[in-house]
């Protein structure tokens, strides 16, 4: 579905990604783990077109279409139209917009009013708190509620590929559990996911496969279960002695 090959990405004067190879297949949850500053967010920003690789390709093939598109040639708006949504680091809901407006703006490119209304109901049934707070400004929600809103907002575009940047960041463990359960449900309902996490144990538990990044390179990849059992990973990322 998604295939990044040899991506070299600069941010300003800084060479951040030194040739990344990464693939996500239809239906998978793929985790991307690594220490702070490894370049995980940069990978996601490159996929959604906010950054452009100087070299390498970001190929994406939506289900049912035979021709892959090179995302590196598309604008972020067009990439949303391809069925890719990013739930950004630190949630970044629109604080001054109401909860409902935040959800509706997730469906900005869609014109199918009836289906949008149905999806809105569906998101609210997953996250009832968003229904209760529909008219409040999003800035008044708690961190966990904002995370739910950010996920709900990204679902409103009906993504085929959902990119999640550290959904556990700054949240209490029970809330993280609840959110990961919902992510699992969303995946089972047919949405492919690329999950960036520093919380490696949660991510490896949820994901089918995983990549480990260090300073702009992929250093390890494989089945999530195998990585979770790998002694090196356990020492570096899972806090095992």
């Amino acid at each position, binding site marked *: 579905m998604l295939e990044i090959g040899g991506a070299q990405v600069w941010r300003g004067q800084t060479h951040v990604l030194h040739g990344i190879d990464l693939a996500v297949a239809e239906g998978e949850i793929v985790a991307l783990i690594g220490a702070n500053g490894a370049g995980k967010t940069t990978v996601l920003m490159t996929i*959604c077109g*906010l950054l452009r690789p100087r070299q390498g390709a970001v190929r994406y093939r939506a289900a049912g279409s035979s021709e892959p598109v090179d995302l590196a040639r598309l*604008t*972020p*708006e067009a990439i*949303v*139209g391809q069925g890719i*949504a*990013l739930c*950004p680091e630190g949630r*970044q809901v*629109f*604080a*001054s*917009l109401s909860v409902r*407006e935040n959800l*509706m*703006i*997730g469906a*900005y*490119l869609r014109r199918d009013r009836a289906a949008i209304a149905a999806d809105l109901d569906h998101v609210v049934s997953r996250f009832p708190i968003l229904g209760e707070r529909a008219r409040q400004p999003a800035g008044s929600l708690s961190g966990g509620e904002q995370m739910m809103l950010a996920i709900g*907002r990204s679902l409103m*575009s009906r993504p085929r590929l959902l990119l999640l940047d550290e959904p556990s960041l700054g949240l209490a463990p029970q809330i993280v559990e609840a959110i990961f359960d919902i992510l699992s449900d969303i995946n089972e309902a047919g949405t492919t996911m690329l999950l960036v996490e520093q919380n490696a144990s949660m991510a490896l538990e949820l994901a089918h496969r995983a990549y480990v990044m260090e300073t702009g390179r992929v250093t390890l990849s494989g089945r999530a279960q195998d990585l979770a059992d790998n002694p090196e990973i356990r020492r570096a990322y899972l806090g095992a002695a």
Partner: protein
Amino acid sequence: MTSYLLQQIVNGLILGSMYALVAIGFSMIYGIVRLINFAHGDIAMIGAFTALAVMIVAGLPLPVVILAVLVVGAAMGLAIEFVAFRPLRGAPQVNGFITSLAVSILIQNVAILLLTAEPRGVAFPAFLSERIPGLPINIDLVDILIVVLAVALMLGLVTIVNRTRLGMAMRATAENLDVARLMGINVSRTIMAAFAIGSALAGIAGLMWSARYGQIDPIMGFLPGLKAFVAAVIGGVGSIPGAMLGGYLLGLAEVLFVGLLPPEYAGYRDAFVFGTLILVLLVLPNGLMGRAAEDRA
């Protein structure tokens, strides 16, 4: 004395209507691109000359004049965005300030070349200056039309901003441009909409100015434009309701300053306006309705 005070308040509301219409554009544009368009006041001048051309030269009726001013104002705003602001997207803020100052000077000088610096009288239809009978103060029909048109345009704007898909995109873009793009919003179009709408309103303010004061010239937009900028800052630059509030407060304050103090102080009215700005900023650095300093990446 009360009727004198009432008269001053009415005059303040009329002046405030014009300041508010111009201030809105400053705030809308700043809200999205984080730049002050110093050529914004000159669009009011262009609106005034458009009115002159359409009404006196072409002899068309008032509703057509208003429509023409809206269209020409919007087109000027789009042109300024395209020529001066778009190439600077992502550049340091100061580049944008200096460029828009240059655009302002350019517009004024081209206007002087084409139209001469000589002020011109604009003869609006006589019925506009008919006095409303039976009032203790002097109000002409044109005064009422100015305030009514200003309020109607502002209500229309508030409706667009709060109730439409475009308005939602504008608010989202103003809050976080990158995340707005991730929603599929074409921010270039949103920026163009802000320039077009804000500039159309400034054009109308120029039309009102010429209808009320009867004289226009190529640099007429400069000082009122600067004062409308002050109004926007007082209201909290970036906030549309703030710009409206700031416009009316400044119009009232300026007229009352001149009207209530002994005549020898009247010459200080501009100093008073800019002094008010300094005072407000000392007490409320973000203006009356502005948001706290933002931490945009």
